[in-house]
Each structure stands twice: as structure tokens, then as C-alpha cells.
């Protein structure tokens, strides 16, 4: 999977959204292809990946076939892509996976396994106390886990300076946390289309909204 493949995938989803085929919330990825490709060079197929509301790139890069990811998205599961066989788990609750990922990592350590856990969060989730609890637990117990902060300087639509009064990032002093910066090419939710420009037919809404 290349950067172009990733971008093309999300463009396809955007087109389907624009065509009114997806009457539900989607969070598209974009702008972080190179950073993720680099990180996923270190992720092996047996590793666990915990993703979040913006999961499409993570799912694709952890080996879930593009056709399967696209089918899930088109079935209303953009925020709910899971795969037991690929060890891929998501939550669209901010920082919701962090403590669960710690439990998985704890079992690996106890068993003496060689797998690793990767937990991807945004800089919004980094703000949350649930992230803090998990990082301290993982660091103190030296769990086989890496928390990756995908910092696009945006918590939904608010930058770090506005919400914290400073641009300085919190200095996580542990090897369990890494951060990369990127500029997102899509807004937080939706496909960046003008408000009201996408029409959903009654039939399609009936089929999906439950």
C-alpha cells in the first residue's frame, strides 16, 4: 500500500459520500500518509492495533483488505472497523481504547509474548485523563505498547493554543509515547463538502439508520 493508494481510497469514499450513498458520520484520513507508512514498517501482522474514529488508514495499513474496509464503511461502520484475525480494534470514544490496549499488552508481557500493541490517538485524546492513566500504567510496568499521538493540532476544530492557552506540547517523558505532526486534508467529520450539498434519499436513510 502506497501513499497514493491511501489517498485514492479516501477519495473514493468522498465520492460515495458526495453521491449520497453514505448517510452517516465518516472521518476521512489525509495528510499523514508518509508518517503512517513509516510507522507501519515497524508493525508486524501479529501486533495489535488500536485505532479511533479516524480508522481507515490504520485498517488498510494493518492488512485489512481495502475491499473489506470499504464494505464496512459503506455499511455504516466507518467508526466501527474491527477484525479479530488482524487484531484490529477501534473506539470512537476519545481515548477509549488506551486502557483496553494496556490490558492486552499486560497479557502479552505476562505470557512472555513477542507481539506489540500500537494505540493511535489524536492530540484531542492526548488531552484526556484516560490517556494519562494508561500511559503511566504502561510506562511503570514497561508494557509492550506504543501510544502514537497523531497531532494535527485540532480537537474537532479547536487548536492547541485555543484550548490550552499555549502551543507547548506536554512533555511525555517515556519511550511508550511517540508523536508525529501533520496537517489534515479533511475536516474533522464529513468529506469537506459545502453544507447541504449532499442529499440522502429516504430509501437510503431507511436502509441504514437504525
Amino acid at each position, binding site marked *: 500500500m502506497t501513499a497514493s493508494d491511501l489517498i485514492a481510497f479516501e477519495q473514493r469514499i468522498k465520492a460515495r459520500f458526495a453521491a449520497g450513498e453514505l448517510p452517516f458520520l465518516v472521518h476521512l484520513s489525509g495528510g499523514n500518509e508518509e508518517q503512517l507508512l513509516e510507522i507501519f514498517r515497524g508493525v508486524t501482522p501479529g501486533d495489535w492495533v488500536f485505532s479511533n474514529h479516524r480508522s481507515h488508514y490504520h485498517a488498510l495499513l494493518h492488512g485489512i483488505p481495502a475491499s473489506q474496509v470499504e464494505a464496512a464503511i459503506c455499511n455504516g461502520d466507518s467508526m466501527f472497523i474491527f477484525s479479530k484475525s488482524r487484531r484490529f*480494534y477501534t473506539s470512537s470514544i476519545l481515548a477509549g481504547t488506551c*486502557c*483496553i490496549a494496556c*490490558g*492486552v499488552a499486560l*497479557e*502479552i508481557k*505476562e505470557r512472555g509474548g513477542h507481539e506489540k500493541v500500537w494505540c493511535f490517538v489524536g492530540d484531542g485524546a492526548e488531552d484526556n485523563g*484516560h490517556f494519562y492513566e494508561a500511559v503511566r500504567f504502561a510506562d511503570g510496568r514497561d508494557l509492550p505498547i506504543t501510544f502514537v499521538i497523531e497531532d494535527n493540532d485540532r480537537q474537532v476544530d479547536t487548536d492547541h493554543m485555543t484550548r490550552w492557552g499555549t502551543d507547548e506540547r506536554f512533555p511525555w517523558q517515556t519511550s511508550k509515547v511517540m508523536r508525529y505532526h501533520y496537517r489534515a486534508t479533511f475536516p474533522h467529520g464529513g468529506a469537506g463538502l459545502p453544507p447541504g450539498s449532499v442529499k440522502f434519499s429516504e430509501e437510503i436513510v431507511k436502509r441504514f439508520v437504525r
Partner: protein
Amino acid sequence: MTYKEQITAAMSLLAQDDRARFVGYGLANGRAAGTLIGAKPHQIVETPVAENLMTGVAIGLSLSGLRPVVYFERCDFILNALDAIVNHLSAARHISRGEFWPAVIIRVVVGNRSKPLFTGRTHTQDFHLALSRLVDFPVVRLSPDRDILAVYETARQAQERGDSTLILEYKDYL
């Protein structure tokens, strides 16, 4: 058997399964008010006082095939863990379309109102009604006339099937 002896026996029953893990705080030293004497040291996962963390850790252990029991020493404190309980433990099988079935036994102590003293409003609340509306698994209250071993045996079997159970015990009976 007294109420406490029954709970202790129930914990020992769960501990017979080597996959059992008791997760929470006050376990390594206090042994959950002495009720975990049947658990082996490696079955105890002592955590900080961080309720959402300990519940999430239990969910993660369950995803990895273990049989976690998470312990709340006061029902009041469970409110800190509702994200893990409601949005994750209870929702996982639905939002994952059956891919993941984490199952945790949640053991909750409702604080003492009278024996030997009143421990205060925010140490004696019983949220069983609210909890039963928030989750899609059984919420069971252990009144003194309940067969406590049978309740935990049912919870154990449910966990084996991938179902969680929340069980409230009452310090006034301990």
C-alpha cells in the same frame, strides 16, 4: 456460611480457573477486605485508583482470553469507569458486529450505612437501577438470602460464553 464467607468462597471458586484475574485496587495487600484469600499472587492485578483504567485493563485481558473480575470497593466510584463499562464493555459485541466479545465480572461493594457506622453520602450510594439501564448484561444484587455461590457460578458460566455480569454486594451484610 456467613455472607462474607460465601463471597470469599465464590472468589475462591473463580480463582480455581488459572485464567482468572482479579483487577483493581486494595487487592494486593487488603485482598479485597480479605475475600481473595483463594487467589494466587499471579492472579492479582493491582492497579492505581483509576477506575476507568482498571476496567479497561480488565476488558483487554478478556480480549486476550483471560477471565477478569474487576473490583470496586465502593459503588460510588464506579461512575469514574462508566466509559469503559457502557461505551466499551457493553457495546463491543454490537459495534464490532460480533468480532469481539469481552466479558468481565464486575464486583461492586455498596458502602455501609450502619455497620459499624455511616460512611457518608458519597460512600453509600447504590446505583443498581441506573446501572441496569446503562448496560445490556445482568446487574445482580446480593441480598443476604441469595445463594451467592450460585450467583457467581452463573456469572462464571456467562463469562465463558462471552457475557458480562455486574454483581453488587452490601457492606452492611459483610
